[in-house]
């Protein structure tokens, strides 16, 4: 336990910094999901399984997916078929 917690704190700091330093939005979403996963493990190690569950489902699964869907939607080609020449 004495090794586990400091390691998880370091991982949290590292993944959090990675989120801030990543510039490309789609990669940033993935970095955020990784940060969420580490946070869920940290909550688990700190004996807060309820919070860990919520963090895992919302922070690692649901919100990255919604971000990715939004990013894909923004970049989509919305011109009608046949008017693609430019």
């Amino acid at each position, binding site marked *: 336990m004495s090794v586990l917690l400091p390691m998880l704190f370091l991982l949290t700091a590292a993944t959090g910094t990675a989120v801030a330093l990543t510039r490309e939005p789609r990669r940033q979403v993935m970095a955020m999901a990784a940060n969420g996963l580490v946070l869920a493990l940290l909550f688990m190690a700190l004996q807060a*399984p*309820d919070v*860990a*569950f*919520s963090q895992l*489902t*919302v922070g690692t*699964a*649901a919100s990255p*997916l*919604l971000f990715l*869907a*939004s990013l*894909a*939607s923004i*970049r*989509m*080609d*919305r011109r*009608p*078929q046949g008017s693609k020449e430019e």
Partner: protein
Amino acid sequence: MSPRIRRWSLLLAAVCLLPAVLRVAWAMPAFGDHPLPYGDAINALAPIQRHVTNMVSAVNFDYRGLDTLGEESMLLAAVTGASILLRGNRGEGLSARAGEIPDRPISPRSEVLAPLVRLIGPVTTIFGLYVGAHAMTTPGGGFQGGVIIASGLLLIFLGQDYRVWRRIVKSEMMDACEGAGAALYGLAGFASMSMGATFLTNILPLGQLTDVFSGGLMLVENAGVALAVAGGFTVLLIEFLEETRAENGEGAP
């Protein structure tokens, strides 16, 4: 702002804020210290008063049940708002064709994905039901279970096809789940009022400690939250993913 000025303003801000940060850091309680009495009080009282072993559920659904009703309404409002915004532009129909992004090809689905998801999908959904149903005894509860159910249903999209997912997971049904769940929570409160107690008082028999069906009215509220969250998150996923489909397109998924 040039990079030079930006760097200097960062340095200035750091120098100004450093004493405050250090002061707060030194005044922080020791790691693992919990000076407030509420956690210990709940741990001691909830098994006796409410016959449940998951204290988080006892706080969420009973001692602070009204707060959870507020959160429930917030989720309902958020999902409703997102649906209205997105459907307002697009309508309620579903598009068969995936939207195209310039210079990113739509790769075909891998062969290994379908059998894998057929294994993982049902297990995930059942695990969600399990987590939701055991809110009174083990960690988890309606919210966590609901999100797991929604992601288990989403796996149909991943493993099969967008159209199959939309055919099995009906948008109208999920809207109804969301609304019915929130309504169930509210009605549970009015049920206690109709018995002459205050709003959300636990009026049902509490059952036996460590039994799945313990906790009385908390079970109804938990079921309401599970329904609302499973429905609400699925509606959100449907609306967001429908945004990535081509408009009124037909053809390959």
